[in-house]
């Protein structure tokens, strides 16, 4: 029988792994660069969410605020992205500065237990994930995957040829914003699972690795999911047996997988 902490950690990893499927779509859209900006926003959202919950205990899960912050940042950055790399560089600094300020200022007003809740978003410990956390992750992941499945064709057409999609009457602005919104939800899920600092590895690396391995879209989705899952499970195992932080072990496992695939592929060439 598995330890309940390990079981919850495994479930957390499964939910986080679904995020890599949507990251693959974001990679194909050519906007994977928004991921770091959006993940920073998760920290600011968590700080505000926990603050509200501290003073209004009946307030729903602070994770809702994390998602809202991520969605707002994602849609905003996607608009700014049209301003080119300089605008994106500025946005990266802005999102980090605002989030760090919110985190530092709000944290100082919080009681100790609430400080730990906010710190959990910086570097999360999967082994301490609660049942209510798992429920939030399950709802958010399911929502993102359902939206992606429903509008898969629309998202794919935007990724492939936005101009023709618009010319033939697709509301590209609406679907593009929807794509950025679900990608933001997945960033929030991963930030909750492994923490903001390491979320980028689980969002970018599986998608990037899948590209090396296959040229079929369907297989890219499956491969990136499996790479995220293997990284997550491998990370939990490493953490359990070597007594190292789970998030760091997951990130390392994904980096090792990427490096192995890269080396093998280049050796073949």
């Amino acid at each position: 029988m598995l330890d309940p902490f390990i079981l919850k950690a495994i479930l957390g990893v499964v939910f986080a792994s679904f995020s890599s499927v949507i990251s693959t779509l974001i990679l194909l859209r050519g906007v994977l660069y928004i991921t770091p900006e959006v993940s920073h926003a998760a920290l600011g959202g968590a700080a505000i969410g926990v603050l509200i919950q501290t003073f209004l205990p009946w307030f729903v899960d602070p994770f809702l605020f994390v998602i809202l912050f991520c969605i707002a940042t994602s849609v905003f950055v996607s608009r700014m992205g049209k301003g080119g790399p300089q605008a994106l560089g500025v946005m990266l600094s802005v999102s980090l500065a605002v989030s760090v300020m919110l985190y530092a200022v709000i944290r100082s007003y919080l009681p100790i237990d609430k400080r730990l809740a906010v710190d959990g978003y910086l570097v999360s410990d999967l082994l301490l994930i609660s049942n209510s956390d798992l429920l939030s992750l399950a709802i958010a992941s399911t929502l993102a995957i359902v939206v992606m499945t429903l509008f898969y064709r629309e998202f794919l057409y935007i990724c492939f040829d936005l101009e023709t999609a618009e010319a033939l009457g697709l509301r590209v602005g609406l679907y593009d914003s929807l794509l950025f919104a679900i990608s933001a939800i997945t960033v929030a899920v991963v930030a909750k699972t492994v923490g903001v600092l390491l979320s980028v590895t689980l969002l970018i690396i599986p998608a990037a690795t899948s590209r090396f391995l296959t040229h079929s879209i369907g297989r890219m989705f499956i491969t990136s999911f499996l790479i995220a899952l293997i990284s997550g499970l491998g990370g939990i195992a490493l953490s359990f047996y070597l007594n190292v932080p789970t998030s760091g072990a997951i990130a390392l496992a994904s980096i090792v997988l990427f490096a192995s695939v890269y080396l093998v592929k280049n050796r073949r060439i």
Partner: protein
Amino acid sequence: MKDVSVKLGERIVLDDVSFEVEKPLLIMVVGPNGAGKTTLMKLLLGMVKPFKGSVKVLGLNPFIESLKLRMLVGYVPQKDRVSYEVPLKVSEVVLMGILLRKRFPRAVSREDVESAKKALEYLGMRDYWDSQFNELSGGQQRRVLIARALASNPTILLLDEVFAGLDAESQEKLLDVFRMLKKNGRTIVLVEHEFDPVMELADRVLVLNRTVCVYGEPSNVLNEDVLKTIYPCVKTVEKEGRRMVILGDRHA
């Protein structure tokens, strides 16, 4: 199109553009970089709105009856507008032209597959149904994109610089496609940066440089005096019974 002017931001990109097409023809739109050729195309599709003038395509106002119009129009974008990073199969690319015109959930029917295969067959690309689009040559990719535009049997075909960057063999194959399309009596609006190689097929040439510099039959338009107003170094040369236009140091 009558007295149409379009602004992008504060810049006027089309100014008092007027022209009319009465019957199915191949119209070639030519002009230097930044002349507003692509904007003209987007105007016909209702994707940009003019601040002055009126536009009618097939008797429809593209800004009010855009959905109706888009069912009748096939569009092929410039090559750099397509993402070759997305690993789609040729079949998926061609079906896109049909499914985008359908309502959600855009389910693929047997008829859709037949239409897509027919369009590919028409362009000599039927054997590539299961091939990866981004692994084809530039000329083959252009033919697949034209098949996508043709799959829904449009009345008008709008093509943006489809000859750009193609080698002579691919250009010749594409010219054959246009010969076939002309025979079928479709109206084709073809935007190109250069006059060659489409010039010989064009029924009308519209030289655009933010406004219509000249519009008419190729024999009237391909006149050095007229073209010098847009391309100061232009020269027209007769070679083997064919008139060529040399724009500065580039052959067109």
